[in-house]
């Protein structure tokens, strides 16, 4: 891990009130995750304890310890999507890639993360494919989209 890069990210956010979350987002954008080694660096730069920083990182669902696969599927698990077959859809897609929630396929290609509502409840079931919204999805298309990205 590039310590100087983490330090630079901290410095770039020095002017903010309560800068920890923006820093963690920026670190994850730069490294694809919040590397374990980044935690003491951030703690030092912000004058916090490692435990405090680790406590924050582990609290939020978004922060990963290891980089995700090349394509990230965020599939909605919440009620409006459930009402139109969202649970079955997710099960089919997970089975296809032979993984469980929050896992990356063995070939490192796809990571599937659960989300609880994407605000696309009127066009459910919904998913984000690398941040792109898709509504009224069916498993065949969702799998095809993920594989097209690979």
């Amino acid at each position, binding site marked *: 891990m590039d310590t100087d890069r983490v330090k630079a990210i901290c410095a770039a956010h020095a002017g903010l009130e309560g800068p920890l979350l923006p820093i963690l987002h920026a670190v994850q954008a730069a490294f694809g995750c919040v590397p374990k080694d980044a935690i003491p660096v951030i703690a030092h730069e912000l004058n916090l304890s490692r435990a405090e920083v680790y406590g924050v990182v582990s609290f939020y669902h978004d922060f990963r310890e290891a980089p995700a696969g090349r394509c990230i599927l965020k599939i909605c698990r919440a*009620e409006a999507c459930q009402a139109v077959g969202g649970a079955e859809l997710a099960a089919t897609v997970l089975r296809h890639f032979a993984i469980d929630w929050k896992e990356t396929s063995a070939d490192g290609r796809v990571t599937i993360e659960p989300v*609880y509502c994407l605000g*696309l*409840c009127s*066009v459910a079931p919904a998913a984000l494919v690398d941040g792109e*919204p898709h509504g009224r999805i069916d498993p065949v298309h969702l799998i095809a989209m993920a594989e097209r990205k690979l």
Partner: protein
Amino acid sequence: MMRVFVSSDAAALAMGADGVVRVLRATAETRKITLEIVRTGSRGMHWLEPLVEVETASGRVGYGPVKASEVPALIDAGMLEGEAHPLCIGVVDQHPWMKRQTRITFVRCGIVDPLSADDYAKLGGFEGLKRAREVGAAATIEAITKSGLRGRGGAGFPAGIKWKTAADAKADRRYVVCNADEGDSGTFADRMIMEGDPLSLIEGMAIAAFAIGASKGYVYARSEYPQANATFAKALDVARAAKLIGTTFDIELRIGAGAYVCGEETALLESLEGKRGQVRAKPPLPAHEGLFGKPTIVNNVLTLCTAPWIMAHGADMYASIGFGRSRGTMPIQLAGNVKHAGLFEAPFGMTLGQIVDEIGGGTMTGRPVRAVQCGGPLGAYFPRALFDTPYDYEAFAARDGLIGHGGIVVFDDTVDMAAQARFAMEFCAIESCGKCTPCRIGSTRGVEVIDRIVAGEKREMNLALLEDLCRTLKLGSLCALGGFTPYPVMSAVRHFPEDFKARSSSAL
């Protein structure tokens, strides 16, 4: 030059709006048609997205839902001239679904160019802030109080009283915080405004800041809304260029990190301060000691977006609409298995049945409506027998229900209510901030107990245990995540007992 409007609302994008725009551009170019394509927010008729609107002498004529591949044929058929076609819905403003609404909070959404200050001004923007400055801070707070506007984030607390409390607190610094964490499933109104009329939120925050004497504002938005956040960030630049902010008051956009509980206002403040999103005990109220210990008003997006209209049109006008103590309008969000899904803004007081059956048109699958969940994951499931309930905070509360943030999720008769109750408990376990034992641990016990009930294991005893567990959650929780999870669970048990009978193992 011809003007065409296509939404870039995330729901429209999710249904292929960008592809439609690409083909529109390409086709216009090959046919040498000069075309201006304006990307707006959505009108809220999401079952018609992507909706293409063309400017005609009689108004904007709509076509939808349009597939990218159909665009050349639609142009051949005279779409750009507003000609008839099976996909044509006529003048959009005259569409029965639009005409039946009272648009206040969403008055410009889907019409205005979201990133044009000129367009915003032409459609009545900036008037509210101007008026606030004319009448002064105290009279602004009085107007918001008199309008009867209640917080649209869920709790329905009177906005004016909150503002007054913060304004009266002695401090050298005050904050306006916009709660844009919209975590409730079945809701998307905040997202739609941030994408479709973001300047109204900025103006609303500027009015609030002027009223309470704040110099800094934060919008706490969710990472699950990348499009809304990108649009809103651009809107902040537009607002600075137009001097709406950036002089005495400025706004910063902050993005959460996927924790539902951070929608709770004190957890949100902790998160803004860079901490774990754990709920604070009250008192102190955020209006006394909020962000970094300073007086802070935390308001939902819709609450703030409604302030400009109230200031521009008068508190009495707003207060004259509504039902009981629920004044004004509610942007109702119809979601899930419903034919006419989308956003419908109406005065409080319609019955739930009217909303689901008449406005929503029943289910998308065409099967009977069996249950609707109102007010997000902590809201009760209503059976058809309660469809006479008027849409009003107090009337819903009297039936152990919630209006919440205005979401209504429709389920047909294939729904398994025991599975829905189980999910409510599971969601509570996943999203608990960990502070209270019943919420942190009791929710996982709840999942196990429901599993045992449907497995037929000591059914009566386990049903009693579930009820007991719900009572403990209600009494032993610091916030509504643990405290309200019993509503979806117990409403499912009470109204749909047949789903909690023992099943053969093959049915599980």
